[in-house]
């Protein structure tokens, strides 16, 4: 096995007296889909926010390919090749789908301030390259015929796809998906799961947080299970399915499955 792309070491985050995430360590294999699961309040989303740098950890580190991610500003995290989506979806609501993607594509381009402002040839080349990239992205997420729609007017499932498109526009090595199948019907979930697999096959490592257990089991190569802020299991879907502690953790809660 190759060296892991992402290493999480002794990660903790406390809110006042609450230990939302407590001494969690795991590694993410390059080129695989890793799922982060657990009952409600297990600390999945907090872990996710710690990895992506939305929250600073109380202690512990996150490394990407050996380089430190902890403490970096979001735009620096993106520059390192890490992109994420958000629970409940974040898009640029007043822009069209194409403008949304174009913004994210342009953000990652090297272009001098004055070259851009004075519209020098370099800027025009960047714009042309962005147009091509947007066309490809629209095709990847299957929203070609929605390109000129205002993002706010899209259906929930389509907004979710656009959210993934925005993350892909960053050209990530590592893609963090926060509940990618939330609010989708079974056929939409299947479609989205196929897309996640396609993303992995194109060489992008994926980590996802998800509630939908069948979808997680079907799509993930590797699963990390959290309960009450701590890691309780780590293995292939088959191993997780038969893990006693995981079954207990899930049966122990009333309203979760």
């Amino acid at each position, binding site marked *: 096995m190759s060296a892991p792309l992402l290493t999480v070491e002794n990660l903790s985050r406390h809110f006042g007296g609450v230990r939302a995430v407590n001494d969690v360590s795991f590694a993410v294999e390059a080129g695989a889909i890793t799922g982060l699961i657990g009952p409600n309040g297990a600390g999945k989303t907090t872990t996710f926010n710690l990895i992506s740098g939305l929250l600073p950890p109380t202690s512990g580190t996150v490394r990407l390919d050996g380089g430190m991610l902890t403490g970096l500003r979001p735009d620096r995290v993106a520059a390192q090749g890490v992109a994420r989506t958000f629970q409940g979806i974040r898009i640029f609501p007043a822009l069209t789908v194409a403008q949304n993607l174009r913004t994210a594509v342009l*953000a*990652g381009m090297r272009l001098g301030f004055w070259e851009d402002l004075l519209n020098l040839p370099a800027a025009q080349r960047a714009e042309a390259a962005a147009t091509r990239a947007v066309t490809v992205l629209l095709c990847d997420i299957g929203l070609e015929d929605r390109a000129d729609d205002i993002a706010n007017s899209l259906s929930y499932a389509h907004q979710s796809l656009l959210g993934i498109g*925005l993350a892909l526009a960053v050209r990530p090595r590592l893609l963090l998906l926060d509940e990618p199948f939330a609010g989708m019907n079974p056929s939409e979930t299947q479609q989205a799961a196929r897309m996640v697999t396609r993303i992995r096959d194109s060489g992008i490592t994926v980590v996802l947080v998800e509630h939908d257990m069948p979808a997680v089991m079907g799509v993930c190569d590797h699963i990390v299970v959290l309960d009450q802020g701590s890691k309780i299991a780590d293995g292939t879907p088959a191993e997780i399915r038969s893990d006693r502690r995981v079954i207990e953790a899930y049966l122990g809660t009333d309203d979760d499955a």
Partner: protein
Amino acid sequence: MRTLGVLLAILLIAVPPFMAEYHVYLLSLTLLWGIFALSMGLVLGFIGEINFGQAAFVAIAAYASSLLRLKLGFSFWSAAPVALALVVGLAALVGLITLRLRGPFFALVTLGFGEIVRLIITNWQDLTNGPLGLRPIAPPESLFGLRFDSKLGFYYLVFATLCVSLAALARLIRARTGRMMIAVREDEVLAGFVGIPVLRHKVIGLCFSALVAGLGGLLIGPFLTLLAPGQFDLFASVDMVVMVVVGGVGTLAGPLIGAVFLVFMPEALSFARELRPVMMGGLLIIVTIFLPGGVIGLLRHGLTRLSSAGRGRLAVLR
């Protein structure tokens, strides 16, 4: 829209020589406020914050250039770049400190900044002559054979400044930097995670806004022939806000329309002066509640009814 703009520009160049001096003065005043409103429009519409210290940027440019002229013998033209550099530099500094804050916090702190600047101007009497103000401030020296010592000559200088400001901002919001600014306004967190340095783009926005405010500030001294700290109080900044909101937030034409509505019309119709603040405040409330798109929004609504072709245009605007 573009043809309309060109037509309007031609009118603004061709008609004033045939106007009464008072109306030329009024037109200059309107355009000057148009420049200030434009600078506020960038903050309000493209950063998404209220800057209650905007008048301080105007004041700093006005005082810096006038002091350089009065005390050190600079010409208007050699003082201008120095004053503008000072304002933009200060805006960068203020922005780095304050733009980490959002909403009411940013508004309150910029209000504090504006007050600090006004207090310093009022109290540093050796330099600024305090509340009595600086006077007389001469019109700009002639440049390339153009003279600015008449009402008409000065009007053309104001007009040219407005055009330059408008062109610079129009380019900014079409450039990558501008689109990054819009993304930050739309969703700061998401913008960060798609790789946009959030604070930097807000600071750049504030610097451009200060540059435009400063350009107007250079002109206000010679225009009034007098500078006093009272001209740059909170109400000056709020007036700019009202113009932007009435005209239309998130557009470049909006602030200019706002200036025409709130400066030119009341004066030209010799509206009761005492009622002006009530009108300003009342309009701000009514437009915000019932017409968030302002006059531009109303016009656009009418246009989209006529043809649905302009659909994509709305996208860059809120």
